[in-house]
């Protein structure tokens, strides 16, 4: 029981091979592999600090066993932008949506998932999709401003590409 197994995880476009036991969570495996932008928070699914995208779906990495993520595409907050910051990241900086920064990676992931579904989200949609991310600094107003701002930037970029 609980013997290690070598698994290969695709994270932010890289392939990571790591030997982990069945009980290792994806959160632990990612942090051990150096992806420390994935934060350890409540470890109960309440705070959203450990959110990552698995095949495009936002999931709490603390509730996911590493073995089950093999063969999936994992994106952490640091992997959202390619060569430059993602519009969500620049908007979070410009709008002051970051204070201590601990909840920020999870919020970026949840917000990314929201915008993928709904490129111009209403206030209600933002509150609904971001309610699983706790932030004790910002009071959320600046987070919503940043998400709105990023949505506008992304729409403009989209129009430019057309």
């Amino acid at each position, binding site marked *: *029981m609980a013997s290690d197994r070598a698994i290969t995880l695709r994270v932010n476009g890289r392939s990571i091979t790591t030997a982990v036991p069945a009980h290792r*969570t994806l959160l632990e495996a990612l942090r051990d592999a150096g992806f420390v932008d994935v934060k350890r928070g409540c470890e109960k699914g309440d705070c959203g600090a450990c959110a990552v995208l698995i095949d495009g779906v936002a999931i709490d990495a603390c509730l996911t066993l590493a073995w089950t993520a093999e063969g999936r595409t994992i994106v952490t907050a640091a992997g959202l932008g390619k060569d430059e910051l993602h519009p969500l990241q620049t908007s979070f900086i410009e709008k002051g949506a970051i204070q201590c920064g601990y909840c920020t990676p999870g919020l970026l992931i949840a917000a990314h998932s929201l915008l993928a579904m709904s490129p111009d989200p209403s206030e209600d949609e933002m509150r609904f999709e971001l309610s699983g991310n706790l932030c004790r600094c910002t009071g959320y107003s600046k987070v919503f401003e940043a998400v709105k701002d990023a949505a506008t930037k992304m729409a403009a970029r989209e129009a430019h590409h057309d």
Partner: protein
Amino acid sequence: MDARFDLEMPESCEEALTLLAQDGAVPLAGGTDLIVDLRARRREPRLLVSLDRVAELRGIAAKNGRIEIGGRTTVTDLVRSPAIATAAPSLVQAGMAFAGQMVRNAATVAGNIASGSPAADLVPPLLSLDADVTLISTRGERTMPLAAFFIDYRKNAGQSDELIRTISWQRPPERAVNAFYKLARRKGDAITVTGVAVTVAIEGGRCTRARIALGAVAPTILRAQQAEAMLEGKALTPALIEAAAHEAAGQSRPIDDIRASAEYRRHMVKVLTRRLVSQAAERLG
């Protein structure tokens, strides 16, 4: 995590059932309850059988007026399904008030039912829809009313080798209202204080079906059957609705806890039952 266990990831339901027939094996679906319990050492299974790769357990189908959802269907699947939006509005309302995005993306219908929590938000809507649950194991398959599945606090009729394969129900009649209200301390990411789901159908000025399901006010989620019986066959006058709501409150057996007092919960059963049945009566004219 400190807990120790083995993990298997079968690709078919058949393979999963063979694994679950072993001693100390438990199914792992979304993990939003089970992983938390493992970490806290509330449960110590020997083997987890992940259902992640068992695609046949996930999905929503509508045929011949019957809705059937696979046990592995997530809360997000429910909230985004046009079929559920028309056939079970209460289930969408419960999904919209369910935890946060990441949990909704992982948590499953079967997991919410099997958790046995009195505050499991998908259960009052399913009880208000007269849902059946189909259990499957290597020994075969059996279907029972969901109401019969719940035995006591966190105790259900499922055996350790059984999986919840599907949950199904007959679509409510055309002139029916199906609704759920979750009372909690916040709108998002909160545990239910009192949850009430109703289905009300009216034909020719009389109530032809009344279902009232109560969450978080007893050791199990329950139907207020005496209150339902008071409404069926009658015209839904304000006085009758008031009396039935009072009866529903009387059938609840709430406790005091950190979220609310028993007295407040009982009072809110009455308020929410009255509100939901009145709104239904008004809409159906």
